């Protein structure tokens, strides 16, 4: 997959924000020819693939299932009216997704959820929701990535593989670049990866510590013990020799500035939020000796933005249930997977998200029985289950909007090229839906 440099272009647009992962790299240059993107500079492979994009499966017109079960093109009015009515008449609607759209669209979504008594949830519910629960329990010592670039002499990755998932994380933010206090970049830093697997990140680290899967809690607990000067009786904890842990804690304790990043390897394995809980407390304890902060490796380019927007508007970060008109947040009760597993929802709309890619099969099975709506740019697995499809535009490419990086730095993403003619932005679609729901409500009130 090595590609030749692009030379055939007639316009450069600089400093664009990438719309792939939580790195939100904002140094991307789009290369345009005839107002189409033909190349991308500075982006990683995945980011580039998202920006350049395959248009063969692009959703171009609204679609509604016909009686034969085939999606059929229709007008916006028909598709929007149908969607609005289904949503308005439902008793337990769920609006899910939002990780790959703008904060402006998300805020419209929150309004709709409030108006219709829906559940508003995003990908946190399948990713770092458990990390957020841990933050809620024991604290939230975080930083922006520039702190790491400029200061960090020790960087620890736990249960995450940024070389694959956030490809420029090490090269742009944490490990390789020159920092104000780390003039020699990589040479000035010690990078340690804790992972059951010998990942690509482990391969570029100074040390790889392999530990047993599902024993994260025990491992971090042991590290805290060692930090407090307690001794461990066992020779091995979670599959790691105690001497190696002692060594690790010495490195951590003696760091001038340490940064710890953790991923789904911690928050999705046995113990879930309690693993993160323990990790947070380890970082809190470390601050007695040195300076440490941490950050979850957020996946989509705006999952963090959703959490921020939802807390601004409702107080809670995800899984907000408006069924009583005011927000309620109850992990395991008002969250998408649990609701679907319990077969409760009677309406499901996915906005810039593909549950077909993300949800367990058992969970997806409930989508067979209820109206399902898709607002997205591409035909995907979920389209095969969707009753109504509303084609939208790509934020940061065809539509402008705000996104928040994994460290909550806001970025304004540009519109660079025109959208396909009959597609509309998520914000536009949701505004339309909101207006239609208002009319339905007025009709009912009269």
């Amino acid at each position, binding site marked *: 997959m090595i590609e030749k440099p692009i030379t055939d272009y007639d316009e450069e647009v600089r400093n664009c924000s990438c719309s792939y992962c939580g790195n939100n790299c904002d140094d991307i240059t789009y290369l345009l020819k005839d107002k189409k993107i033909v190349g991308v500079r500075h982006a990683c492979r995945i980011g580039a693939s998202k920006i350049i994009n395959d248009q063969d499966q692009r959703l171009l017109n609204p679609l509604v299932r016909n009686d034969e079960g085939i999606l059929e093109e229709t007008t916006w009015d028909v598709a929007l009216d149908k969607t609005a009515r289904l949503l308005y008449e*439902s008793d337990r609607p769920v609006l899910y997704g939002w990780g790959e759209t703008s904060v402006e669209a998300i805020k419209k979504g929150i309004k709709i959820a409030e108006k219709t008594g*829906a559940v508003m949830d995003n990908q946190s519910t399948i990713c770092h929701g458990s990390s957020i629960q841990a933050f809620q329990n024991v604290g939230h010592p975080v930083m922006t990535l520039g702190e790491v670039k400029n200061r960090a002499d020790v960087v620890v990755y736990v249960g995450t593989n940024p070389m694959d998932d956030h490809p420029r994380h090490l090269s742009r933010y944490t490990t390789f670049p020159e920092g104000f206090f780390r003039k020699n970049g990589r040479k000035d830093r010690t990078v340690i990866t804790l992972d059951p697997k010998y990942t690509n990140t482990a391969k570029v680290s100074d040390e790889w510590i392999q530990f047993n899967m599902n024993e994260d809690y025990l491992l971090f607990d042991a590290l805290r013990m060692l930090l407090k000067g307690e001794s461990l009786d066992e020779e091995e904890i979670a599959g790691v020799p105690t001497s190696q842990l002692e060594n690790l804690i010495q490195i951590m304790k003696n760091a001038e500035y340490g940064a710890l990043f953790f991923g789904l390897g911690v928050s999705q394995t*046995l113990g879930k939020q309690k693993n993160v809980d323990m990790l947070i407390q380890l970082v809190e304890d470390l601050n007695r000796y040195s300076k440490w902060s941490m950050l979850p490796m957020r996946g989509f380019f705006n999952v963090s933005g959703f959490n921020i927007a939802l807390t601004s508007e409702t107080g809670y970060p995800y899984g907000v249930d408006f069924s009583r008109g005011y927000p309620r947040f109850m992990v395991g009760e008002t969250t998408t997977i649990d609701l679907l597993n319990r077969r409760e929802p009677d309406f499901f709309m996915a906005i810039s998200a593909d549950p077909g890619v993300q949800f367990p099969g058992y969970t997806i099975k409930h989508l067979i029985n209820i109206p399902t709506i898709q607002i997205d740019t591409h035909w995907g697995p979920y389209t095969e289950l969707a009753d109504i499809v509303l084609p939208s535009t790509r934020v940061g490419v065809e539509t402008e909007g705000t996104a928040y990086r994994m460290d909550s730095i806001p970025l304004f993403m540009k519109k660079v090229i025109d959208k396909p003619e009959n597609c509309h932005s998520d914000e536009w679609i949701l505004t339309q839906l909101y207006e239609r729901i208002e009319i339905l409500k007025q009709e009912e009130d009269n």
Partner: protein
Amino acid sequence: MKVINLVMTKKSSISLEFDNILPELLFDKSLRQINETIIYRGNKEEPLSHYFDVSIEGECDDAKECAIVIDGDLSRVKRIGFAMTCGKIIANSDVDFHVGACMSGGHIIVNGDAESYAGREMTGGLLEIKGSVKEFCGSSYAGEWRGMSGGQIIVHKNAGKQLAEYMIGGNIHIKGDCDILAGVHMSGGKIQIDGNVNQWFGGQMKKGTIIINGNVEKMLPGFVLEESIYHPLINGKQFIGKYGLYSGDKTVKGKGRIWIKK
């Protein structure tokens, strides 16, 4: 004594929420008023009578003398006895989330299993579950570091994960087994588990007592065996057999006490 009988006539796949079905709210209400009491179903409000047949036996002047008996499949009825202060509720079935959560008095009997969040942030009263409970029984709600502070929970079968997280007071008795992380972040109160206990119990425990009569896999490294005692007297109650007393969790300089039967 007044008994309000509720018999489910129609099951809803969407959970019903029973916040308003409490002895203190219904003891002085007429049959018609009770029939019209609002229950919540998804984003709709409906009268109780849509889903339940209501009948009343006897009279009372005081909510303490009022009992609500609920029959039918209640596995989709949430918040039974939520924030209850007095009286009695008997649910003759499995029940959904939050049974007895935030209750401060009275007595709830569940003749079946309970979903997660049973007795969460309870401050008083008695919650008795004849079957098993799922996750977070007797613990705190999100973000809160002051969990169950009083009252008693008795579970006749098993308990799920994170039992009594952040417990600061009260008593919990699990007669069956218990999953991971029992008593995590506990800083008061007493838990007795008669069955086997999965790993990581007592994690980051600061204070309080856990008594385990079944088998345990292994303990977190932050607990040390203080002594072994025959027939110990724990919080005023005599236990028969040889028990090891462990203290911890040292990761938080904790002074919790875990008794494990040998």
